[in-house]
Structures are given as structure tokens and as C-alpha cells.
């Protein structure tokens, strides 16, 4: 069996992450007894820049936290709000769970797909919108509901789609 003893840093963290990102990651590392726990925080911090996390960023986060890059990759691919491929400038998350389903979420989602000319998991050609389903947003008394980036929109109707999209350039 070959034992890997190479302890040299494999990536130059400073060349991949900004000083602010490194600072923010360190802030979260102090919240936990083990730096690994900052994995998700770090991925979310880095994701803010381009909307997704690339391979070099995964490697840099892993080195910063002192854990294998495969572990960061395992976390990044497990959680649905971490994106490992490019997304549009704005991400639309349509709640497709039962309360919204009862209030017409499926026809609402179809209308979004028609309006944007894409299916779930795709990005518009102008790179403006990515469309994804999401599980219950806990806004069931105002169904159907969806999120665009960090904004929650309630009681969304098919008629309101265009006006809604216009708010996101």
C-alpha cells in the first residue's frame, strides 16, 4: 500500500480566495470546536462571488479548513443550495411541495418554464435566470410561493410572472 506523505500545500489559497472571503471563513471557523464545521459557511461565502463554486475554490476551502477536498466536494454536492456548475445572475426557486401544489404550483412552474423558455435545472441563454424547484418554503398560508435570490414572493399568480421577472435585471 502506498502511503501519501506529501504535506505540502497543494493550492495557493490567496490566489483563489479574496482576502475578504478568507476573513469571513475564519470568522465562522471560530464558531465551532472543529474547523470542518465551517464547510457550509465557507461554501456559501465563496458562492456569493460567482453564484457557484468551482473546483479550485473547493480545493482552496479544503486547504483552509485542513480537510480533504473530497470531503468539501461531498458536502457541496449533498446540499441543494450549493451549486457546482454555473447558474444565472438570478436563481428562481419555486416551491413544489404539497401546500403550494394544492394552490396551483405545477401550472405556475409550467408558466415560468414557458416564459423563460427553459426547464428546471436550466439557465436562460442571456445568463439571467436559473430555474429550480425547492421543497416547502414554510410560507404555506401564502401559497403558491417562490424565492428569487434572497427574496420570498407570496401568493404568486401566473399573471404576475412578467412583472416579477422585470425586477431582476
Amino acid at each position, binding site marked *: 500500500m502506498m502511503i501519501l506523505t506529501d504535506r505540502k500545500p497543494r493550492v495557493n489559497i490567496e490566489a483563489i480566495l479574496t482576502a475578504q472571503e478568507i476573513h469571513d471563513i475564519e470568522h465562522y471557523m471560530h*464558531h*465551532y*470546536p*472543529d474547523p*470542518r*464545521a*465551517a*464547510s*457550509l*459557511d465557507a*461554501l*456559501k461565502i465563496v458562492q456569493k462571488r460567482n453564484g457557484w463554486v468551482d473546483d479550485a475554490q473547493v480545493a482552496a476551502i479544503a486547504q483552509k*479548513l485542513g480537510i480533504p477536498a473530497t*470531503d468539501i466536494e*461531498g*458536502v457541496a454536492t*449533498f*446540499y*441543494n*443550495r*450549493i451549486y457546482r456548475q454555473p447558474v444565472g445572475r438570478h436563481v428562481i*426557486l419555486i416551491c*413544489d*411541495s*404539497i*401546500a403550494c*401544489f*394544492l*394552490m396551483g404550483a405545477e401550472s405556475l412552474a409550467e408558466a415560468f418554464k414557458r416564459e423563460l423558455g427553459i426547464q428546471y435545472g436550466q439557465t436562460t441563454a442571456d445568463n439571467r435566470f436559473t430555474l429550480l424547484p*425547492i*421543497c*416547502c*418554503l*414554510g*410560507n*404555506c*398560508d*401564502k*401559497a403558491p410561493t417562490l*424565492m428569487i435570490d*434572497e427574496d*420570498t414572493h407570496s401568493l404568486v399568480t401566473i399573471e404576475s410572472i412578467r412583472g416579477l421577472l422585470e425586477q431582476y435585471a
Partner: protein
Amino acid sequence: MNSQSPTTQPNSQPKPIHGNGTAETHPLTWRLKHHEFVHDVDTYEQLEGYAGMKKALGMTPAEVQAIIKDATVKGRGGAGFPAGIKWSLMAPNDGGPRYLICNADEMEPGTFKDRLLMEKLPHQLIEGMIIAAYTLEATLGYIFIRGEYIEAAKYLNTALDNVRVKGYLGSNILDTGWSFDIHVHTGAGRYICGEETALINSLEGRRANPRTKPPFPQVAGAWGRPTIVNNVETFNNLPAILLRGAEWYKNLSAHKSPDPGTKIYGVSGKVKFPGLWELPFGTTAREVIEDHAGGMQDGLTLKAWLPGGASTDFLTPDHLDLPMDGETIMKAGSRLGTCLIMVVDETQNMVALVRNLEEFFARESCGWCTPCRDGLPWGVKILRSLERGEGQMQDIDHLTELTKNLWIGKTFCAHAPGAMEPLQSALKYFRSEFEAGVKPVATQASQPQNIVKQA
């Protein structure tokens, strides 16, 4: 439940969550009668805020624990396990770290109560957590909140900063010699994070696969240390119990239910006024749906209802007059769950509805154990073919088999059994709708083998 004549409706206006009650009758929400929300620590303190905490910190942890145990507070996350008993199973203090975690990963479809409590009353949760942490001699706390609750996380972080300035968090809190702090940890999706041990794995920065039990988190939880995980609403109950006592708490639901206290009830679906209301445990579903939610929308009739989230069994209009408490709803063949009712009207096809539920559970399976990872998508395939009217007679038998093979004891955690609850009850009450999705025999001859065998 037919609500075609609006004049017979008991209410024609939405009712407020606090029912215009007082601190004595509506301990969780009465402050919202005076303010739309209470984010400011001084405003909260003017309304009895942190009084329960101060009282607790004047006692020994054992004395506080005795009060909580006497009040027999039931957990509000869905399982209804008594919080006092959970706490009593925590390993004794050996001087090392002890963790307290608030499960704010509200993702059970149809559940929207913790969002309101955190967005409107962040200090009440923090006060409840400080009381619990003092009792359990915890050294560090986390609020594990789902990433989509952006407003709630923001208000909680501000509230925590304000409370640190007051000296209610930090070192040597109110000269007790006890030190404690709370961090907000935001998630990044996945329903399974609500499972207690999966939540701990997620907090540690791992994939949210559930852990084997035993050891239970009370003995070896976060980072292998004793850990207690409770729901947002459970913590919200604690301040008033400390202030007014266990007897007062139990009297809140006297003659209505063996479960003590008030509960945030709610209704979603096609009712006139979907929403949330703080009511005594044991309030009937009819009262919640008709008196508070205003009944079904005009022209619609109630066909079925889920008592407390996607992972509970359907009940029918025949069950509406049952008091909604853990024991009664279990005897009726379902679970109280989160107590947030979802109503289904008679125009809704049950096969399509159950297909949507099972798609959710199949997608949210963590993939750790085979029955759940493979069984749930099979269920979805069968339901889709029945929904298209292309099912075979054996399909219904296969769905029934699934409800047995994905049941408790056959899977690693409660995720797949939870998925089977709405399926098994829909098959029980609405079997004819599933049979209607079976393709007539004459046209079946040309069909390939059963869809399960292709999977």
C-alpha cells in the same frame, strides 16, 4: 364542511394568531397584540421579556429541570417526545463541552409556524434557549436554521448581539458563574437535516446522513459530546412556564387534552383564511378549520386533511370533531406531527396529490439506506403511471407492499416510514381513485411488464 352559504360561517374575517388573549391565555403570541413584531430587546423586556430567564437563573439547574419535567412539555417538532424526559437522559456534566441545539430547519411540507415565531419574536426563542442551557449546564448553543429563512436569521443575529450587551449571554451570566453563548448556523437545503442526528452531522460540516442510535445525542451528539436538540416552538414555551409555573401551564389545556399548554395550530390549502393561531392543546380540527380558517373556500367541500405535515396519515371529515392532541390523533390512525393542518377539497385527485408527496420524499432521501433510496422512486414511478391512467392492477399491490417494506425497522431512519404514512392512508380511504388509474385489461395485453420490474 360544505360552505356554500357564507351566512352560516362562524367568522367572516381573518382571526389574529393571539386571539386578542393575554399573557395568561396566549403565552406564545400575546405580545403580538401590542406590536406587529418584537425585535427590540427593551420592548421585549417591557412585556415580561427575560423575566422567566432571570427567575430560572436564581434557582439551581435541578430546580428548573424539575419545573419543566412537572409541566410535561411535549416537543413541538413533530414527534411529541416530552422535553423533560429527553433532558433527563443527558449524560452527567464531566466538565467538558455540552451542546444545546435549536432545530429551526423547518422544512416539513405544510409547516410554517417556526418561521413566524423567529421572524416576529426572536427574543422569546433566545430566552427559552438560555433557560434550557442553564438547566442542562450547556456550554455552547446553536440555532440550526434553514438557509431560506433569511429574515429570521438576520433578526436572530441582531437579537443575539443585543442580548450579549445586556450580559444574558457570554461569560459569568448575571453573576451565576455560568458561561454560555449561541451561534446561528444557516443550512443549505435538504429536508433530512431536520432529523436530529442528521442535523448534528450537518452542523459538523458533513453530509446530512442520520447516525445510528444508540448512542443517543444526549450521550454522544455534536463532536461526540452530550447534546440536546429541541424545536423552536418547544423553546418558546419555556419562559412563561418559569414565570407562571407548571400548574398554570397544565391548566391551559385542562379538560381539553392530556397534552399540556397551548400550541400553534395552522391551516393551509383552499380555506378562506389560511393562517396560524395559538390555541389550547385538544382544540378540534373542526374548530381550527371552520372557526379560525373560515371554512373551505366557497363552493368547495372538504375531502381529506393531513393533521400535521406531509409525513402524517390522511384523515377524513369523519375525524373533524376529534380533539387534536397526540394520543387522540394516533388512535384515529395518524400522527399529530407539527399540528399544521392541510386541507384537501373534493376536486383534488388523490393519486396526483400522493404522487406530489412521494416525489418530495424521493428527492429528499439522503440516499444512505437502500429501501429509502430505491423504494421511494419506485413508488413515484408507479404513482405517475396510475396518474396517467396507464397503471396495472398489480401496481396497487406493489404500493401496498412498499408501505410495509419501507416501514419502521426496515429503514435507517424515519424518513421513508414518514413517506409511507400519507400513501397508506390514501390507499385505505381512497382506493377507488387508485384503481381508476389502472388501464383496462383489454389494452394491457400489448403492454410491457410491470413498471417495477423495469426499474
